[in-house]
């Protein structure tokens, strides 16, 4: 088969941009699942919630989606802290309740999604912003702003988060929790408080990821489901708690998906992430870039 070069290059470029965004979607799960071992499968649903809030702020008040996403960070942080508190009291404290903890988040996913359906219906929503339409052209390479902006925002946010985790006391405590709770006690940090902060941060990232999402594509309540597979595929492939591995895995997946959509049609795209995930899990459960 003769593959046109421009299609190939454009596929790879938009895959890389998409990958940057995927990293933003995944970073929350990388923290909650990868670092503090809380399997929040409802995370994509919270991202959609973020998208809808950004949508309202944009349509009703004319606030820029990225700014709206940043403004929502504290709200989502508080929501995360509250959810962790319930999770801790109901499951972690009792011990050996992983099945029910999983069901809890599965229920939250469902509640969030159905609530959005009840409030907004199942129509697709988009957000107005100057950078949704235009595309920068470099030769035959297209750089659509609606992909470029989320990618830049995402990578910046991940970079800042990485600095925070490696430099601040609480950040190091979070990293220590993922290694060894005993070491954490030696540091003088309480595991519960540390995990609460970690989970709250992970949920806060959903606000920004939601903003990025609604810039990239129109959103409806069940859109989140498409991301469950992607998020966990990337997280696992990236080696759980590692940000570097996560970004590389996200870009890889972005490229593969984008090329699949270009050459085989978009209806095959959803299966790509999950096939990736299944293969990763089957061949290397520790992830491609695992510890």
């Amino acid at each position, binding site marked *: 088969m003769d593959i046109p070069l421009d299609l190939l290059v454009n596929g790879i470029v938009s895959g890389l941009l998409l990958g940057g965004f995927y990293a933003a979607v995944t970073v929350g799960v990388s923290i909650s699942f990868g670092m503090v071992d809380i399997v929040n499968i409802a995370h994509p649903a919270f991202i959609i919630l973020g998208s809808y809030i950004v949508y309202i702020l944009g349509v009703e008040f004319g606030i820029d989606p990225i700014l709206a996403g940043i403004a929502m960070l504290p709200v989502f942080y508080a929501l995360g802290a509250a959810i962790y508190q319930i999770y801790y009291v109901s499951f972690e404290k009792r011990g050996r309740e*992983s*099945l029910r903890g*999983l069901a809890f988040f599965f229920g939250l996913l*469902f509640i969030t999604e159905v609530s959005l359906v*009840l409030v907004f219906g199942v129509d697709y929503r988009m957000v107005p912003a100057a950078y949704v339409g235009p595309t920068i052209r470099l030769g035959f390479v297209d750089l659509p702003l609606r992909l470029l902006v989320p990618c830049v925002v995402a990578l910046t946010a991940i970079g800042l988060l990485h600095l925070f985790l490696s430099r601040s006391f609480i950040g190091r405590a979070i990293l220590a929790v993922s290694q060894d709770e005993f070491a954490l006690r030696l540091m003088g940090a309480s595991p519960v408080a540390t995990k609460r902060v970690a989970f709250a941060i992970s949920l806060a990232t959903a606000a920004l990821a939601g903003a990025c999402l609604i810039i990239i594509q129109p959103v409806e309540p069940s859109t989140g489901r498409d991301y469950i597979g992607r998020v966990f595929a990337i997280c*696992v492939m990236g080696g759980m708690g590692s940000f570097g591995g996560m970004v590389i895995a996200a870009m890889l997946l972005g490229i593969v998906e984008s090329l699949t959509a270009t050459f085989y049609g978009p209806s095959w795209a959803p299966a790509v992430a*999950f096939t990736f995930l*299944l293969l990763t*899990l089957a061949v290397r*459960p520790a992830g491609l870039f695992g510890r």
Partner: protein
Amino acid sequence: MRRGDKGSAARENVAAPAPSAARRSATFLAAAVAVALLAFLAARSVGNDYVFFAGYVVLQYIVLATAWNILGGYTGYVNFGTAAFFAAGAYSSVVLHKLVPLPLVVHILVGGLVSGLIGLGVGYLTLRLRGVFFSIATLAMAVVMQTLITNWEFVGGSRGTYVIRPAAVPIVGDYIQYLFLVMALLAALAVWVARQIEGSRLGYGFATIRDDEVAAEASGVPTLRLKLIATTVSGAFMGMAGAPYPYYVTYLDPASGFNLAYAVNSIAMPLVGGTATWAGPVIGAILLGSIQQLATVTISSALNLLLVGVILVGFVIAAPNGIMGLLQKRRP
């Protein structure tokens, strides 16, 4: 202390020396079938087809919840992919219908075989995947299968396909009544199988897998073989529940066949009812299934799913052992 007493009470019920285990199990099967037939006659006496349409869904959920619990409740492997097994059964029926329409019972057997084989494959995943990784893999499998079906034109692709339902069946009468009867008997069979497993050598083996697989192996439990049995049996029943579905809806598309509601319900029902025994999923399915059927007609179908989500979250937080757990706690 309290926990110990409760555990022993539950266990003594199961392990009490039986006059003849085989006879008791035959009695149970007979009773289950009798209940199924009674339900059928009761529905018939109402004389309204809606009862059959609504009852069918509840019965279907008894099968799905019981099947899910054989894997999830007994061995502790949480399957998020119920929809995939169900749809595999439904779509095998569609394929058969298009190629060589056979009696419904044959469709059910084929659907069970197909989904049982998928279950066997999923079982091999447990070799490498524990806990949540297994759950995520089952979810992934459901999406991959949905994509395959969506791109498979023979079964209608994303548009879906119509399946003509025969008008009537000899003796039973109207086809929806026939579907109801078949599903009721299937539910009786599923519950009987689940009960057979409990308190048997297999049931004890499943429990050790749920508790500690390494220790189970050291105590002689062939964990892989048992997990394969659990995933196969569980998958097969889900497929059998799905096989008659195209005739029930008469129009099947990937969105309805792979509806996430199957996954949520098949998890919520056992957890609400209680995962320790066969009775839990049955109670959960009847309760949640009926609430949803009522809510669908009286309120809206979106709201009834919200209800399921809220009930599920409420129960896992407040009543970790489900309704059965609450009942047992009351008992002195």
